[in-house]
């Protein structure tokens, strides 16, 4: 039986880890390889690197960052941000990523998911699904860091992406992201019931209890950035709480 995965996320810009809320007011938070290694040592099950660079120069740095992290990291690495074509994914995989996450580009070009899955396999193809409540009991797909609604139903998009070959969904609630009020458990429940692939909860976690709630709502893995950033709370700390709640974790 699989354990619930705890996945710290590093937002990386121009080769450095940055911190901020909704990608605003970013401040420098250190060297990615050093942080990655620290996360593995303190119980992370997997790592996500999101490249938030805005320029082509920044993007080309991402492969160097991935290579530096890979050299020291002995757990799986997913990389997202700016992947628009097979060649972008190929460059990141060659540098040492195990999975690639596609988001905005896949919304504009759903065929991208089919191409990635055919070339690299479903286990390598992650859909980054950003969603926000539509005010009618459902969720819209949003892009551009949650600022733009594209007029698609999030649940229906999750189903289509899986049918096209996505092997995992990284599900971010932009209503919750940065609020520290917990994940959108209704959204998690809806997506995890709609598809058969693993679902990673993202957006809104401030403490271990939030992670427990996400798992109870159907998440197979939980992603968190801010709660781990200052090193005060480690993945092992939240695993202890999760285990106390009867959840299965790797320790």
């Amino acid at each position, binding site marked *: *039986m*699989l*354990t619930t*995965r705890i996945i710290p996320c590093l937002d990386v810009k121009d080769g450095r880890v940055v911190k901020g809320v909704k990608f605003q007011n970013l401040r420098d938070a250190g060297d990615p390889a050093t942080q990655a290694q620290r996360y*593995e040592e303190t119980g992370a*099950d997997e790592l996500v690197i999101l490249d938030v660079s805005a320029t082509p120069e920044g993007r080309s740095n991402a492969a160097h960052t991935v*290579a530096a992290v*890979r*050299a020291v*990291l*002995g*757990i*799986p*690495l997913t990389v997202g941000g700016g992947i628009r074509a097979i060649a972008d994914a190929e460059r990141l*995989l*060659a*540098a*040492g*990523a*195990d*999975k690639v996450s596609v988001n905005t580009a896949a919304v504009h070009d759903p065929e991208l998911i089919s191409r990635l899955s055919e*070339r*690299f*396999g*479903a*286990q*390598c193809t992650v859909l980054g699904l950003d969603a926000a409540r539509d005010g009618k009991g459902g969720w819209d797909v949003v892009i551009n860091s949650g600022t733009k609604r594209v007029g698609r139903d999030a649940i229906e998009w999750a189903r289509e992406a899986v049918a096209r070959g996505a*092997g*995992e969904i990284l599900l971010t609630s932009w209503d919750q992201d940065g609020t520290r009020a917990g994940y959108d458990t209704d959204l998690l429940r809806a997506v995890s019931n709609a598809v*058969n*692939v*693993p679902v990673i909860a993202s957006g809104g976690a401030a403490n271990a209890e939030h992670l427990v709630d996400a798992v109870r709502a159907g998440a*197979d*893995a939980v992603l968190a950035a801010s709660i781990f950033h200052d090193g005060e709370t480690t993945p092992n700390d939240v695993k202890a709480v999760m285990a106390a709640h009867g959840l299965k974790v*790797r320790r």
Partner: protein
Amino acid sequence: MKVAVIRTGTANIASALAGLMRAGAHPELTSDPDVVRRADAAVLPGVGAFGAALSELREHGLDQAVIERANAGRPLLCVCLGLQMLASASEESPGVTGLGVVPGTVTRFRGDVRIPQLGWNRIVPTPGARVLTEGYAYFANSYKLESIPEGWEGASAEHGGSFVAAIERGPVIACQFHPELSGTWGLALLKRWLEVAAC
């Protein structure tokens, strides 16, 4: 130790190479069957589809080099699809013949479980296993071998029923999981394999 890593078009080959280097080996990527034959140890990585990966191997004559090493008991590590290719066939690619080093057909996970299996699962080895130990291993697969073949030690895990997590026979090891992504436990396993391979 020089380790020949067979080029199969695996997407995340960089992870396998980095893992072997952390374990102290000197990996060399190759599509040359003679390099695979001569190497102290060889690794057959693999993700992707059963049929496509096998035709890639056969195109370069690498299938025979792998079969020879496995049957002669020369150091060989097969990872993920690498394990599945040792079987006779797979539900993933009907009609395609596997390497036939072990009998049996690879089947898709069934039941009320997430597919692909992505994550850490506890593996339990058979009593005679030397390289495989109990611990959490990282898996990324939709298909699996159902039972440990006769004459092999191995390990099993649960995902909608029991499946083969790994098999071992002397220095020939095949893991459904990714030792290179299985943290310090996986690193220790790679080191044990390299030690057994050096004997």
